[in-house]
């Protein structure tokens, strides 16, 4: 989303294949950060005491990386099931924000498309597609772009999870592969900061995320996200003449 609408001009009047290819191309480099995270999750899941089938099945049934790590850790610690469910729900609450953000671009689609795209709506698929959806041409086939980012991420996540279960334990911990998820988010965040108010939103969200770490059930994620959004909104007038 760095270069405004010009970056997406080639998708003006694109057919579904071009949109799909655009989404896949956008997501592929992100897999460099997601695959190591899948490996790490595979190892953590087994270490927490989950059977291999559950570690792998969770990647398609739940399909939300950080909440899968949380699930494995809480299950391993024999936390009551209601607490596990509640915590997973809160960790994934941010997906409602993604849902609200993309809904306006998917209004005319049949229900099966909406369900498919909702299932595939992850951090990395959303962040990779939202620039094209917000700034690119209004094209009846643009949902294929979101499908392209979502499905590419899904496939990479499934394969890396299986690999993590099979060979993950042979990876030295000194490689610090768990850092790859932070790096992936940095690679998605920095080019998306175009205006001062977006920078403020990010800074406030990061600060609140650190200050609110003590909140139960990982509520700090939503607290930080909402604080950042409100701060960005409040600082809009410092953005100069550009309006989005």
């Amino acid at each position, binding site marked *: 989303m760095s270069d405004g609408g010009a970056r997406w001009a080639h998708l003006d009047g694109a057919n579904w294949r071009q949109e799909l290819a655009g989404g896949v191309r956008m997501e592929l480099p992100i897999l*460099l950060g997601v695959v190591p995270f899948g490996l790490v999750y595979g190892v953590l899941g087994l270490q927490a005491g989950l059977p291999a089938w559950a570690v792998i099945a969770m990647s398609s049934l739940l399909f939300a990386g950080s909440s899968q790590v949380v699930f494995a850790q809480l299950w391993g610690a024999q936390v009551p099931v209601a607490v596990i469910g509640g915590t997973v729900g809160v960790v994934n609450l941010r997906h*409602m924000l993604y849902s609200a953000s993309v809904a306006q671009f998917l209004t005319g689609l049949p229900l099966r498309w909406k369900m498919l795209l909702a299932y595939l709506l992850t951090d990395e698929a959303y962040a990779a597609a939202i620039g094209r959806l917000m700034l690119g041409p209004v094209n009846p086939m643009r949902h294929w772009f979101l499908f392209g980012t979502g499905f590419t991420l899904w496939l990479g996540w499934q394969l890396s999870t299986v690999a993590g279960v099979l060979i993950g334990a042979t990876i030295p911990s000194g490689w610090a592969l768990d850092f790859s998820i932070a790096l992936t*988010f940095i690679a998605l965040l920095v080019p998306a900061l175009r205006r001062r108010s977006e920078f403020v939103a990010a800074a406030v969200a990061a600060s609140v995320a650190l200050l609110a770490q003590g909140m139960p059930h990982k509520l700090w994620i939503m607290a930080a996200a909402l604080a950042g959004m409100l701060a960005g909104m409040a600082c809009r007038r410092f953005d100069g003449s550009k309006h989005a």
Partner: protein
Amino acid sequence: MNDDLWLLLVIVACGLATFALRLSFIVGGAQFKPGRRMQTVLGYVPPAVLAALIAPEIFVRQGHIVFGLDNPRLLAGAVAVAVAFFTRSVLATITCGLLALWVVQRLF
């Protein structure tokens, strides 16, 4: 109940809840037509959520917030931010960030 079956049911329940969150506005949103103001707020979802997810990964080590230069992830994260800013390349950012972390870990 069989332990494996119970585990599967809990995973499915968590999966359905997550799916419902993702589906909420996409389907319920037939009536959800965000006004101009709401659209502007939603425009801040990417920077706010991504920054919220990044900060603890970098600053929280073993349950404590570490701001000092003795935190290798802080230095590596700074390298990644700089690379992302100048190259806007996802591949370069992840590669340089990981390499930087490995170098810093060796040095200290």
